[in-house]
Every structure is written in C-alpha cells, then in structure tokens.
C-alpha cells in the first residue's frame, strides 16, 4: 500500500471516528456536519468520475444534485399530504422509503445526465464547461419559475424518510447511513477506475482520436461515464435533501456546481478520496471561519487561493505525491 493508500484509510477512519466521538460527547451538530461532509463528498465522487477519470469538466453537476433532491421531495411530499403521487394513467402512491427514493434519484440523475451528456459531449474543452453550465442554469430557472413544485420556496418534508431497521431521525444513525453509501460509492469508483472501462475512459480523455482508431468510441465511453457520474450525484442530492428535509432551486444553482467542483479540486482531481478530503476541508473551513467575522468569506477565499496556488494536486496530491503507475 502506497502513501495514498494509507492516507485514504486515515481519511475514511477519521470520517467515521469524528461523528462517533461527537455522538459519545453528545454533540449532535458535529454528527450532522460529518453527515453533510459524507453526502457532499458523495456528490464529489460522482463528479470525480466525469472530471477526474473522464476529463469532462462539468460545471453543471448541480443539475443532477438538484434533480436527485427533487426526486426525493416529489416522492415524499405526497405522503405527508396524504395524496397519491399521481392518479393517471395509474394511481401511484408516494413513498417515504429511502431505498426506493435512492433508486428513483439515481435513475433520475442518470437519465438527466444521459440527455445533457448526449448533447454536451458534442463539444469539448471550455465549450463543454459552458454548455453544462447552461443546462444547469436552464433547470435552475425552470425550477424557480415553475409553480408546481414550490418555485423558489422549494418543498419541505417535515419528517426524514425511513430506512428499514434504522431510526433516520437519530443523527448518528443517519450519518452511518450516509457514510455507508459513500463508502460503497468509493469502492465502486475504485473498481471502475481499474476496470477495462476505466482504461478506455482514460484513453478517451487523453487521446480521443487514438481511441477511435482502436475501435473504442470515445463518445460512448464518455457518455457512459457521464451517466454514472450523474447517477451518483443524483443519489447524493436525494441524501442531501433528506439531511435538510428540504429541497429548493438553490441546489440547482451554479454556485452549487462550483462548490462540488471545489471539493473535488481541493481534495485532488482523479484521486479516489479527493472529494472526501475536499468536502471535509471545505466544511471545516466554512465552520471555523464562519464565527470569526462578518467578512469570513474573504478569509475563505484567501484560504482557497492559498491552497490552489501552493498545494498542487489538491490535499491528497500534496500529501501523497505523484500518482504511482499501477502495477
């Protein structure tokens, strides 16, 4: 195991130990913060597949994040209002079951990524950044001005959705759930990176012309990765909405896309645990600086600048050094 492997374990264990300790010390808010880190890291893991492995710099991942959130609210809100989800063509009830909601959010995120990716991947480079941003903004404005789902006010669900065998309202149990999902996604992402598909994706990123000449369609490979990426980020959105028991267009805004990207870059692009380290650092900074002064964002900005200028390769990159070639 190389340095990066050790580091990954440290990060993973810390993210487990902190909420447990906080729980023991009766500091439920710290547990909530750790949950937030885990969920935002999950969104980052999703983005990292597109960004790190596939080189697709998407500034529109808030779209999938928000869609996942809305999937949760659209399914759960009817239950609390004692109404069916839809009556035509078949009557379908809403649900407050997390596994069902997760499935729906993953599918919704993936489908949205399929549509957006299919169009966006016709472009590349800076154009890709901007067209994904444009799709994100399109959904954002749609969500704000479309009255059906609360517009800018968003939708509140008052009670967190349920997971069989767990009391999700208990912060530590919900945290454990989020942590479990994050770890599963990390495992999946690691497997993906090493698989044939991961290699094909890497090839498509570095030299699409060569990939095509080898009979590998870069477009299909990238689109597949983009869909997987959107699906994971959608799942994170559903969890995030459940954490807050609330969803609003703010989840879809370009600032959200920017922040998810910041997590990834801060932690280390294409590093397995990059998003986790990045999200943790960002939330930590936000909460440490938040109390310092009214102008705390000035310091946050300076801190981010310092990191990007002097800690190349993000947190993991700086601490673990250059990636060693696999076996």
């Amino acid at each position, binding site marked *: 195991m190389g340095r990066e492997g050790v580091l990954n374990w440290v990060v993973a264990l810390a993210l487990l130990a902190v909420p447990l300790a906080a729980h023991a010390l009766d500091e439920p808010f710290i547990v909530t913060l750790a949950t937030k880190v885990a969920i935002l890291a999950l969104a980052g893991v999703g983005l990292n597949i597109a960004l790190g492995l596939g080189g697709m*710099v998407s500034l529109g991942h808030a779209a999938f994040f928000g869609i996942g959130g809305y999937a949760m609210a659209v399914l759960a809100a009817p239950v609390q209002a004692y109404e069916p989800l839809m009556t035509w063509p078949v009557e379908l009830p809403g649900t407050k079951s997390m596994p069902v909601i997760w499935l729906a959010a993953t599918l919704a995120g993936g489908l949205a990524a399929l549509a957006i990716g299919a169009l966006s991947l*016709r472009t590349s480079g*800076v*154009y890709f950044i*901007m067209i994904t941003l444009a799709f994100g903004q399109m959904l954002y*404005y749609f969500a704000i001005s479309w009255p059906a789902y609360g517009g800018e006010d968003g939708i509140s669900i008052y009670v967190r959705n349920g997971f069989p065998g767990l009391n999700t309202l208990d912060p530590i149990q919900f945290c454990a759930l989020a942590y479990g999902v994050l770890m599963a996604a990390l495992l999946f992402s690691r497997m993906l990176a090493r698989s044939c598909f991961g290699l094909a994706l890497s090839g498509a990123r570095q030299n699409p012309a060569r990939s095509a000449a080898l009979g590998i369609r870069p477009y299909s490979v990238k689109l597949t990765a983009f869909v997987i990426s959107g699906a994971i980020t959608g799942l994170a959105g559903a969890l995030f909405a459940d954490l807050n028991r609330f969803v609003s267009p703010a989840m879809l805004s370009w600032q959200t896309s920017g922040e998810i990207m910041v997590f990834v870059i801060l932690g280390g692009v294409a590093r397995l645990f990059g998003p986790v380290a990045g999200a943790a650092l960002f939330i930590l900074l936000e909460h440490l600086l938040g109390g310092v002064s009214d102008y705390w964002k000035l310091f*946050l900005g300076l801190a981010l*600048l310092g990191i990007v200028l002097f800690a190349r390769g993000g947190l993991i990159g700086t601490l673990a050094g250059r990636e060693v070639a696999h076996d």
Partner: protein
Amino acid sequence: MSVMLLIEQALNGLQYGVMLFLMAAGLTLVFGVMGLINLAHGSLFMVGAFACAAVAGATGSFWLGLAASLAAAAAAGALVELTVIRRLYARDHLDQVLATFALILVFSEGTRWLFGSFPLYLDIPDALAGPVTLPGGIDYPLYRLVLIGIGLAIAGALFWLIGRTRLGIRIRAGEADREMIAALGVDISKLYTIVFALGAALAGLAGALVGALQSVQVGMGEPVLILAFVVIVIGGIGSIKGALVGAILVGLTDTLGRFLLPILFSTFMETSAATSVGAALASMLIYILMAGVLVVRPGGLYGRA
C-alpha cells in the same frame, strides 16, 4: 402590439446586447485569447462600478468616475494577474476555476468590507439623461443610444487590435503555444499582464457604464458573468466578432423572448398563467439558444474548435 413597439423592443435588445458585449469583450480577450477561465471577471465589473460610484459621489463628476473605473479595474486586474493568474497559465482549467472562484469571494467580501453592504448611488450624467425622439416617433433614452455607440466603437478597436496589430498576433501565438512564443523572444508574461489589465479595464468600464443604469451592489457581477460566458460561447471563444454577434443575439433573444412569449402563450391560455409560463420559458430561452447553437456548431458561431 404595434410595429413601433416591436422596433423599440428590437432596439432594446440591441442595446442590451451591446451592453453584454462590453462585458464579454474583456472576458473573451482573457478567456479565449489567453486560454484562461476567469470566473472573477464579474468581480472586475463590480470593481469598475464601485470605483465609478465612489468617485462620482465624492467629486460629483460621472466622467471622473468613469476614468476612475478604468484605472481601478485595470490596476486590480494587473495586481491579480501578477499575484495569482500568472501561476495558473500552465495549469489546467480546473485550477483556474477554483482559483478564480476563490477570487470572487475575496473581491465580493473585500468590496463589502470597504463600501458596506448597502447599494451605492450612481446615476447617468446630466448631459446624457432623458429620452430623445427617434425618427418614427420612438422616445428612446439618450444614454442607451450612447452605450450602443461606445460598444460598437470598442468592438471595432478590439477587432483591429487583436486581428491586425503585431501585439494581437503575438497574444494569439502565445495562446497557441506559450513556450514557443517565449523561445522566440517575446516576453509573454508582460504581454499577458497587459492583456489581463486591458480585459479588466473593459470589464470595469462596462461596470461603470452599466452601473449608472443598474444597482451598484456587491454580487452585481455574477449574473452578468454567466451571461457573458453564454455570449462568448455562442459566438465562439476567442473571437471578438463572435462576442459581438453572440451578445447581440443574446440581447435580442432575451428581450424579444420576454416580450413575445407571454403574448404567444396568451393566444391559447388564460392571461395570468400565460404571463407566468411565458416568463418561465423566457428565462430559459438564452440557455436554450446556447445549447442549440453548440449542438449544431460545437465551436460556437465563429469558433475554431
């Protein structure tokens, strides 16, 4: 709906487009020509507006304010280039996104720290205030006509600078291969500082000119920034001509869409719902336009990609 109203709206669209161009021009210089994604370009727009408002407020002269906006934005741009941006050319777009994202925070909160949280006062200079009557009987604000003129003049000047002068050629060469142009004896760093300052000055000028029409407040740059991105992506990155055409296209689409869509929907919907649905669609329209253009022409209208 009269023809005159439609013409007036088209003029409004043109003027809005030219306003966007002022912002997009600086951005396309930096973004296209130097190959740098500068999310903080909107902050320089804000710096220009605040500098103009502060100086105009203190001296009572809009024109002094305008000069101050150019100076302040150019200085801020040069400073940022020397301390931050300079280290980012060799990095990929990601680091640039992160660093300039951080710069937005620094600029916004720094400005708030200096000027407080309340919007500042800045108004159109008296000489340009009020409407003039155009042929055809349209009353149109003089200031907006002047903006159209300034925007087009700047477009011409930039077109010449980038396309025709040796400075412009060297800048573009530097974008294609920074190392090679240095190996040919061109001090690309100095060149980039100048270009970045120039782009910043343009943004600052736009901020000051637009600030007289709008609210001078912290965060004013971000919505314009996104629009400016849309503009240059539609036009094709790095192309001044593309920025101009894109800006005018966006201005017209947005203005006419906001005006015509509710009318269109009200032909088959109840008015109140039609205005709401029409407005919802109108707010998405330029993004739809952009996506449409990129799907058909992945490199934008005048792009090389």
